[in-house]
């Protein structure tokens, strides 16, 4: 109850409202720019928060995080360019909807889903911090390994009809993930002495190449006549009606559940949550065949999950003082600079700040919805300009964004190479998603597999003895068996046809 009062007093202060609104607006812009990740958007504002009151500074940083994680979906839907890592799953159906002239609807779904997810996550965070932090502690190396495998098992369902090609793409992604410093011994692998590769291949580079650049290439190869602008039949933002939202309740519930379970686990993050909830939404959907062809559930599920994570990812930061991602690391920096030590004691020493932060972030989510309504219309107008101008702007935007990740010319070459490879994969009908999944999850899987074996002196039984690990492995096996069965049935059908 005291917490509620702290939260209320925070949101009635105009400085906090200003911090929340300004932070969200900045975050959406940053998130919408490919390459400007949520953490970079936050880092850019960090120096300006030094002179603010601690609460105002933290609300501002948290609001940037929320806005940025949402903002990534805008270019994902409109130009097949995920603005943030976690928006990769939204590309699949969001961009198809846009191509069908339903871009305004897709944006409405992602905005509404994101807001609902964000608010739901905050309520969880404020009421269930302790159980959620216990959940984070349950993730030991075997559990992380199993979580990675579960993520990888999605390959089976995203490459239906071309299982061999999907697996090949997945293996190529895993191979890319082995570039860099070996997680256990520290020797370098496949870096060819290049220091830029010491920390591995950043997957946003590959994602932008495979999605954005390759899309541009296909557009040009198809030789679309100039000036044939296919206007979005509804060229303005369309917010889903309540009955529409109700009809999508299952996908949203899945997004909320996955986000709630994934978010508190350090290192798992929004990207894995988005993919897992996309996959689950498809499995439990009444119309799974619509996925990949402009499914509304395929947009709202990952977007809901992704924004639940913006709240639940704060659990390890607040209750252990351990950031689970780059973004929360900067938020932690915000605490430390103001002399606050996140950790078990924060809840008793500074409840005003903590609950004030929750209150401020609640307002930030609502502001995100309002700001979204204002800016999405112009965004849709912008992508309906003549194709040549749009092509040029996308490429310039991608290159500038990539450069800003690392101030690196080398990274630009990586994106070009990824674009060329992505295009070849597309032409040869290899699914691109397994490649991304392999790259995202390879490190988690390998390092935790080897850590687990170190712990048990090589006994593999640990993966089934550990409760969390056994459960996740079970899920992964179910996904794989179902995938293989569908593939087998397809073969049979074709053979008899």
């Amino acid at each position, binding site marked *: 109850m005291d917490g509620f009062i702290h939260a209320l007093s925070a949101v009635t202060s105009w400085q906090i409202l200003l911090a929340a609104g300004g932070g969200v607006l900045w975050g959406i812009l940053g998130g919408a720019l490919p390459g400007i990740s949520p953490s970079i958007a936050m*880092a850019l504002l960090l120096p300006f928060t030094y002179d603010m009151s601690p609460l105002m500074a933290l609300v501002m940083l948290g609001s940037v995080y929320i806005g940025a994680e949402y903002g990534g979906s805008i270019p994902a839907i409109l130009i097949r360019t995920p603005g943030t890592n976690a928006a990769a799953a939204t590309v699949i159906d969001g961009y198809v909807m846009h191509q069908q002239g339903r871009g305004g609807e897709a944006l409405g779904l992602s905005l509404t889903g994101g807001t609902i997810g964000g608010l739901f996550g905050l309520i969880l965070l404020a009421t269930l911090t302790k159980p959620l932090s216990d959940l984070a502690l349950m993730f*030991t190396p075997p559990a992380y390994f199993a979580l990675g495998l579960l993520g990888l098992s999605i390959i089976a369902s995203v490459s239906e009809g071309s299982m061999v090609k999907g697996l090949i793409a997945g293996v190529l992604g895993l191979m890319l993930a082995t570039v860099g*410093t070996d997680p256990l011994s520290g020797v370098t692998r496949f870096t060819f002495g290049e220091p830029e590769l010491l920390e*591995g291949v950043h997957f946003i580079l590959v994602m932008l190449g495979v999605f954005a650049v390759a899309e541009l290439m296909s557009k040009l190869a198809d030789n679309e006549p100039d000036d044939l602008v296919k206007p979005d039949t509804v060229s303005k933002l369309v917010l889903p009606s309540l009955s529409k939202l109700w009809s999508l309740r299952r996908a949203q519930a899945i997004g909320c559940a996955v986000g709630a379970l994934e978010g508190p686990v350090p290192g798992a993050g929004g990207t894995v949550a988005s993919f897992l909830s996309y996959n689950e939404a498809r499995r439990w959907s009444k119309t799974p065949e619509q996925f990949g062809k402009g499914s509304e559930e395929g947009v709202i599920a990952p977007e809901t999950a992704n924004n639940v994570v913006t709240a639940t990812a704060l659990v390890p930061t607040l209750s*252990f003082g351990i950031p689970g991602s780059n973004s929360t690391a900067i938020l932690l920096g915000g605490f430390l600079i103001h002399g606050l030590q996140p*950790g078990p004691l924060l809840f008793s020493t500074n409840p005003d700040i903590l609950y004030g932060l929750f209150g401020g972030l609640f307002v930030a989510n609502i502001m995100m919805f309002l700001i979204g309504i204002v800016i999405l219309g112009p965004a849709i107008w912008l992508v309906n300009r003549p194709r040549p101008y749009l092509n040029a702007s996308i490429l310039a935007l991608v290159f500038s964004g990539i450069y800003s990740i*690392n101030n690196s010319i080398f990274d630009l070459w990586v994106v070009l190479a990824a674009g060329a490879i992505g295009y070849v994969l597309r032409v040869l009908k290899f699914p691109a998603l397994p490649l991304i999944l392999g790259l995202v999850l390879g490190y988690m899987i390998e390092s935790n597999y080897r850590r687990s074996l170190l712990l048990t002196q090589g006994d593999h039984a640990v993966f089934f003895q550990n409760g969390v690990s056994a459960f996740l492995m079970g899920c992964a096996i179910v996904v794989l068996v179902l995938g293989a069965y569908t593939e087998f049935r397809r073969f049979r059908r074709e053979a008899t046809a």
Partner: protein
Amino acid sequence: MKYRHFLGALVAVSATVSLAAEALADYPHSTVKLVTHSSPGGGTDVFLRKLSQHLGPIMGVNFVVENVRGGGGAKAMAVLANSPADGSIFYGTTPSYVNTSLLSSPEASFTDLDPVVNMFYDPQVVYVRANSPYQDLTDVVEDAKSRPQQVIVAVSTPSSLDRQVMEQFQTVTGTEVTILTHDGGGDVILNVLNGTAQVGIGEIAELRGQIDAGELRLITTYTDERLDLFPDVKTAKEQGIDLVVRKFRGLAGPKGLPEDVVTAWEEGIQKLLADPEFKAWYEGEGVIPAYLDQEGARALTAEFATEMKAFFTEYNIQAE
């Protein structure tokens, strides 16, 4: 947790006003850049920002902190090596810039830079869960002797000092433990808290919250003397285990800095370390002030590099 993939490079330039400083223009530059490869809010970043705040008035200079991330410090070293040696740009050093130089072939390595001063050592500490039976490092040694490879020690990254000191620990004590590497200090804490590892190695700053809450307990420090903050915690040396870790924090510049610039820094830093406000900050952080002038800092870096090189060679950790 996994910052490996995040090489966000960006420049967070804090706006500073340069009018006040011009009055005390002893130093050849009114604005001096401090480069770090740490991200905003990270250890070295916060340290440099605090330093700017307090050293600015002392030296009559405006400091601007610039985060040049990427390549484990390779980018930042290249920036420094290509900058003029006139005292307008410096680099906040930590052991990782030496390690990166040894483990890959960066465009510029630590030998292309010249240490200016050393300021602190970050004390390396051994910790356990509050309810652990271990009271000091001797307990760990005894347990490890009776159960070879069964005691699990969590350390941060594979090429970190924590890792190196635990490998040395096995040689010095004649024990065999299982050393579990992680992606960073945060993961180490989680795996000690959840019981995956029985012992963790880390730094005070990241442990403070858990220690104050009584969830974790320090059992030993790898320092020359006991820490002021934790006078009851024994050093490894006291327990007959001769291991001292000198995780340094200092400043380096491009090679060939003019003598007056170096002198200005040596004097400035000594004043800074005595400054009561700055002192209050670093004492709270749990770092040990360890001022060394340029000669001392050079010797420290060289000695450290030799040790690390020997360690990497012994375990065949090397650049391709």
